[in-house]
């Protein structure tokens, strides 16, 4: 069953008189439990697509159904609500908040859900343990290695128990050994039944993903 579906999705950036066509019409259905790898050359629109899926941005044209709801034309507050409850983000550069500790970073999505401090702390601690950072719970991001920081980011992405986890080149800043560890963590999430979409340049990922979608110049060129 498709939990997310995009129809003829178009995103055009306007820079003065010049129009940049980042996405030229993308159709895709994402099923529950999918583990999808998005590949393609730089500038082919992968990040743009992921941001649209993550409700960080709205498309110029086309529809995006998340569950029953067309989220393509929602207000900023409504999009925030969807990000808060249904989306988990993992970024290439980790994007942890530097002044917060590991557990506090994991708690951020729960804060915006209005969960109680006690409940948030319990859940965040459990997640830190799950990604193997129980002993680092009170450390600050700058005291951690890149791989460890990305584990925190993964724990944070799972904190709100999202529909979809979106990862934009999660291993891009890591050496191959650490990258493999991170991918193993994503694999295990997928095995737990999470829906995961990850942008990657690593052909290796393609083997563990169920589906590989290749982008080229704002369009899907293959879907296997």
């Amino acid at each position: 069953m498709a939990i997310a579906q995009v129809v003829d999705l178009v995103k055009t950036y306007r820079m003065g008189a010049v129009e940049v066509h980042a996405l030229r019409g993308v159709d895709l259905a994402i099923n529950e439990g999918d583990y999808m790898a998005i590949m393609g050359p730089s500038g082919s629109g992968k990040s743009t697509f992921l941001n649209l899926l993550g409700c960080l941005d709205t498309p110029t044209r086309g529809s995006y159904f998340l569950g029953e709801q067309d989220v393509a034309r929602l207000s900023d507050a409504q999009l925030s609500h969807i990000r808060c409850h249904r989306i988990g983000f993992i970024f290439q550069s980790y994007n942890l908040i530097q002044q917060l500790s590991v557990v506090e970073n994991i708690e951020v999505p729960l804060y915006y859900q209005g969960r109680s401090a006690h409940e948030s702390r319990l859940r965040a601690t459990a997640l830190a343990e799950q990604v193997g950072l129980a002993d680092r719970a009170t450390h600050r991001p700058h005291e951690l290695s890149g791989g460890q920081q990305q584990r925190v980011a993964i724990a944070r992405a799972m904190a709100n128990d999202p529909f979809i986890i979106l990862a934009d080149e999660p291993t891009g800043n890591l050496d191959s050994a650490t990258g493999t560890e991170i991918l193993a963590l994503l694999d295990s999430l997928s095995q737990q039944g999470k829906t995961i979409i990850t942008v990657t340049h690593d052909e290796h990922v393609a083997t563990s993903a169920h589906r590989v979608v290749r982008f080229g110049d704002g369009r899907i060129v293959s879907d296997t």
Partner: protein
Amino acid sequence: MLGFRVQRTVSMGLKSLWLHKLRAVLTALGIILGVTSVIVMLAVGEGASQAVQAQIRQLGSNNIILRSKKPPEDSSTASATTFALSYGLKYLDAERIKATVPQADVIVPARHIDSEYIVRYHHRVSGTVVGTVPWYTEVAKRTLSQGRFLTSLDMHRRATVCVLNGPIVRKLFPFHDPLGAVVKAGSSDYRVVGVLEGRNAAPGANGAASEGSGVEIYVPITTLQSRYGDTIFKRRSGQFQATQVELHRIIVRSPSLDEVVPISKAVEQILAYGHTKQDYEVVVPLQLLESAEETKRLTNLLLGSIAAISLLVGGIGIMNIMLATVTERTREIGIRRALGARRTDIIVQFLTETILLAAGGGLLGVALGVVLPHHVVTRFFDAPTIVTARPCILAFSVSVGVGLIFGIYPAYRAATMDPIEALRHE
């Protein structure tokens, strides 16, 4: 639920400020100093004004004080070097006032002989001999520290008795009890029957209370009259000058505060009728009090505007730093937005920080403002200070308001950033 949210927001704001403690304090410095200086200035103003009011009250709010004044010299009086220069209040003035304004209770005539030598054995001081009436103490609000004041019998008998004030006692009787002793003033001897208590230094305004601080000896006005006559001779720059002043002062007491001004008007008319020259002055302590209050109101207005400006400057300082903070934390804002923060959440976050900063500054300013006047101004500058609650509450509320107003724009800037752009920010 709301309380819980507020608590979490505030604790998040405090945490964030705590991270840059020094910066926070420096940012709030404008507010701190603004609030402190307002409270200190108002405390000094209040202290001074209370002191002035107390001094004016000592003159008696019900009193109208008439004093003889040497008229401005003009050609008609230039020839007065050969004749006695006659000016000032007359016994007749006192009579007329008594007859015309019967509701005015007590009328105290007084006459001064200045620069007279007062002698006891080999101690000698120069002072003023004041001829007055028994009810002088009651009207002028003076109290006796020893003995009694002059009586009607003294008046009637033209008795050679006197009452001394504090300064003269200290000079003539450093070791002895003055009561019963005899002092010589001019050419007559007087027996001391009482000592007046000292009075605070006179307020500058018109020298209204100038008596009481110098060396003074009080004798029955009738005695003075018989000893000195109406004409006083004095050597001045080689020439003898004669002046004729019947009364130096008349105090008219109104039975109620409401009648002070009408009675003073009536008295002025009576005097204007009897005098061709402006050789007297009328001092109304109640009006002095009113003008002192008006002055205070104006001063407060001025201080208020200074306060407003300094808090404005403080607010601009805070806004400046908050704008820098927002830019510095662009990435954080992007992350929070991606993780589900609404624009409102971001606005609340930054607005809370700004308000906490301003309110903290205001609180610190109030604390300093409460402590400094007493422990620094009064102790080291010897100025009376009174800290009242009103400016403290006002200054604190204004600080919070400043935080709110100057926090809105930075918070708005933070909230309207594009999340994707913000996430890419280095």
